[in-house]
């Protein structure tokens, strides 16, 4: 294994290098040219700004939650305010950040370029999805400003329909609308990947990032509508008093659980799969090797998408579903671990005997590997029936999904942002500061969430704003970790902003990577390619790259 001083970064001579005169960023000027753009790259930037905004709102609520839990006494806020904090944290983070994070920003930006197309199949629909995202976001913000919502992000009935007098309908409308934004993104990706690939770009030459976004898109397209109709029913139950989930009128609250988790379990794969795609790209680039078992990794994405639809009832083991169905769902849950493990093992084998270098994206990717593995393994604990009854609704489950979602997806998102930042902006981020941020995030994350596994195992329930004094030490550790984590997330915001003006000029291919996106200028032209590329090699073909000077990308006129 090589020393960390070793690097593959290859920047043009900074004295003569310039940002290309014509690119997608300066092609047109003015706010309107952004707000009415059809360019997938500009929409990706719009999304990036939007999700960053909501990420920090969601993060602020996380900070408030941790602050309240610093002491065992309920001293910072009243219990119902605390309920609103964690509800808003969940709703904002899941629907406004995690679901659109990688697909709508990196996916939007990269998928057309990776497959050699000029744009996504439906640019207007793509723009519409961004507007829907914001309308949904504004509804959610309205629910917050008007006084909040305290159902948790799950909108559980009959709590949400009968026992609360907060802005459930406003928040549900917001989530309903954001759902359509996500459906349109998924639909656009699927059509684009099927119909817009450049000549020679076969399915098995696609970068794995495209495969994992494809799998996530299937989940978006098939799962989200079910959430939509479920939320319509909840809203109708509150507004008109119909009783489809109301036991006093013959309805069944469990039906809500089934319908809700039919979307919301696949939704966690919507959140993680695109991140796995990022990791495949990053690990391959920084170990200078083709992804080991390309086909297995590609199909494991689709397998996760497929199995993901048949495990939803593992969220309901303690809700009185029949023992037999619990048994079957427990077994199916174990099965999802198989394709996830395939990915982890294949990434490990990709690293083996690779020429590994430790640039920032790779540090985040290593963070992902460790944290996602812990998150995934604890998922197997929770999938086991007996353990689940002990651990569910405790901090163990909180720690588990934060390991997968924050330790997994957020690490992958940051890996991807750093990896493609030179392509998106044409400039490098500051390397040493960003390494510091990656390490800070990793340490802060572990300090925040490892104690929560122990807390949960000891029996501290989630969603309470007070706890017995003997849990205080672990909670203080967790809150301290959250502070470190907060610093770790603020740093990229600052130095990435700084790099927009002062970063080193990146050139076309700072990582000497193989993907089509690295063969064009940074930042790209509005139409991506001057001439449609013809693909005659597989993805991650580093031998091809070595002979690139002898063999440029061939094109048709």
């Amino acid at each position, binding site marked *: 294994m090589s020393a960390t001083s070793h690097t593959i970064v290859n920047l043009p001579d900074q004295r003569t290098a310039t940002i290309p005169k014509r690119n997608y960023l300066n092609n047109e000027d003015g706010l309107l040219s952004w707000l009415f753009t059809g360019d997938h790259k500009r929409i990706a930037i719009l999304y990036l700004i939007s999700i960053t905004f909501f990420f920090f709102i969601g993060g602020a609520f996380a900070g408030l939650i941790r602050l309240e839990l610093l002491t065992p006494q309920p001293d910072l806020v009243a219990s119902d305010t605390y309920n609103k904090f964690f509800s808003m944290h969940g709703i904002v983070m899941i629907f406004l950040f995690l679901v659109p994070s990688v697909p709508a920003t990196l996916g939007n930006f990269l998928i057309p370029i990776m497959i050699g197309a000029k744009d996504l199949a439906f640019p207007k629909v793509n723009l519409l999805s961004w507007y829907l995202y914001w309308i949904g976001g504004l509804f959610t913000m309205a629910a917050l400003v008007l006084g909040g919502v305290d159902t948790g992000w799950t909108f559980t009935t009959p709590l949400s329909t009968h026992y609360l007098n907060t802005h459930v309908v406003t928040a549900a409308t917001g989530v309903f609308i954001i759902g359509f934004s996500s459906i349109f993104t998924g639909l656009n990706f*699927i059509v684009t990947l099927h119909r817009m690939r450049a000549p020679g770009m076969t399915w098995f030459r696609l970068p794995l990032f495209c495969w994992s976004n494809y799998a996530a898109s299937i989940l978006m397209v098939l799962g989200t509508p079910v959430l939509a109709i479920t939320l319509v029913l909840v809203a109708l139950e509150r507004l*008109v008093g119909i009783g489809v989930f109301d036991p006093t009128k013959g309805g069944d609250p469990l039906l809500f659980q089934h*319908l809700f988790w039919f979307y919301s379990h696949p939704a966690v794969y919507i959140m993680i799969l695109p991140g796995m795609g990022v990791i495949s790209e990053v690990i391959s680039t920084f170990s200078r090797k083709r992804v080991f078992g390309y086909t297995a990794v590609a199909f494991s994405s689709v397998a996760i998408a497929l199995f993901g639809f048949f495990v939803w009832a593992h969220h309901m083991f303690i809700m009185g579903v029949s023992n037999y169905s619990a048994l079957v769902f427990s077994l199916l849950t174990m099965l999802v671990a198989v394709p996830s493990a395939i990915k982890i093992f294949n990434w490990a084998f990709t690293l083996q005997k690779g020429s590994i270098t430790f640039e920032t994206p790779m540090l985040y990717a290593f963070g992902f590997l460790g944290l996602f593995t812990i998150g995934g393994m604890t998922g197997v604990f929770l999938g086991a029936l007996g353990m689940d009854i002990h651990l569910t609704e405790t901090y163990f489950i909180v720690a588990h999904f934060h390991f997968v979602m924050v330790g997994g997806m957020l690490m992958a998102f940051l890996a991807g942002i750093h990896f493609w930042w030179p392509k998106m902006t044409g400039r490098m981020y500051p390397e040493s500061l960003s390494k510091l941020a990656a390490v800070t995030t990793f340490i802060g994350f572990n300090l925040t969430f490892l104690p929560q596994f122990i807390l949960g195992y000891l029996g501290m329930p989630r969603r309470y704003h007070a706890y017995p004094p003997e849990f205080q030490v672990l909670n203080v550790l967790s809150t301290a970790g959250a502070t470190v984590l907060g610093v770790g997330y603020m740093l990229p915001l600052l130095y990435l902003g700084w790099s927009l003006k002062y970063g080193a000029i990146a050139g076309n291919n700072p990582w000497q990577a193989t993907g089509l996106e690295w063969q064009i200028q940074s930042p790209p032209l509005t139409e991506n390619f001057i001439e449609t590329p013809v693909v005659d090699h597989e993805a991650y073909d580093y031998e091809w790259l070595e002979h690139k000077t002898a063999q440029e990308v061939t094109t048709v006129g």
Partner: protein
Amino acid sequence: MDNAIVATRPHSHETAVAAEHEHVVLPQHRHHFETKEQQREAATFGMWLFLLTEIMFFGGLFFAYLLYRNWYHDAFVVSSNQLSIPLGAANTAILISSGFFMALGVWAAEVQKKSLLVLFLVLTTVFGVAFLGIKGVEYHEKWEKHHIPGSHFDVSEFINPPINPKTGKPTETPLAPDMAQKTQVFFFLYFAMTGMHAFHMILGIGLLFWLTWRANRGEFSAGYVAPIENFGLYWHFVDIVWLFLFPLLYLINRHPGY
């Protein structure tokens, strides 16, 4: 190479390409597609995927129906008998006719007959509106009979059904009071499912007005038929949903041997 949607007619590039290659490039061809076949295929594929999401959307309601119909079968039978089969059947016929004219409209667009296309689109709209009219009559009847779920819902008719004066027997099997309450679940699902269907019809009729206006300007009479074709897919999908709703809601009690 202007990619902003706000620029309404960015077709100068396409016209240039047309002059170069000496073959007709449709003004509707968008430059990020290589060929017009690719554009047409992409649009159709996108529409099918959208219909897939619609199936999942209605799927939630059908799932709820399946569950409660099994649990409260007696209540569902009795409440289903309250629906008017003649009106439902008439509506089925009307909707199928509407779909028939839509299919003819797609054909008219493909053979580039402008006036026929407009005529068929108008007929599609007329039948669609007629369907909604009859639906409105049915909803009104439910209102008068207090069959709309909520605080005004009245179950007395299901507990003590009216006596048929000729036979002296109740017209329906009387339900126990707790089962009678469950008729509300049926009517809720009836309103949610037909309401969601009607909502899709209303959206469709709105689109039909727009398409008719565009067809009248001759936009679809020169080989560019994708919007008509794809709207046709949507309209047929709405038809098909009704073809499931009609037997499930109206004909529960009409199978032989019951």
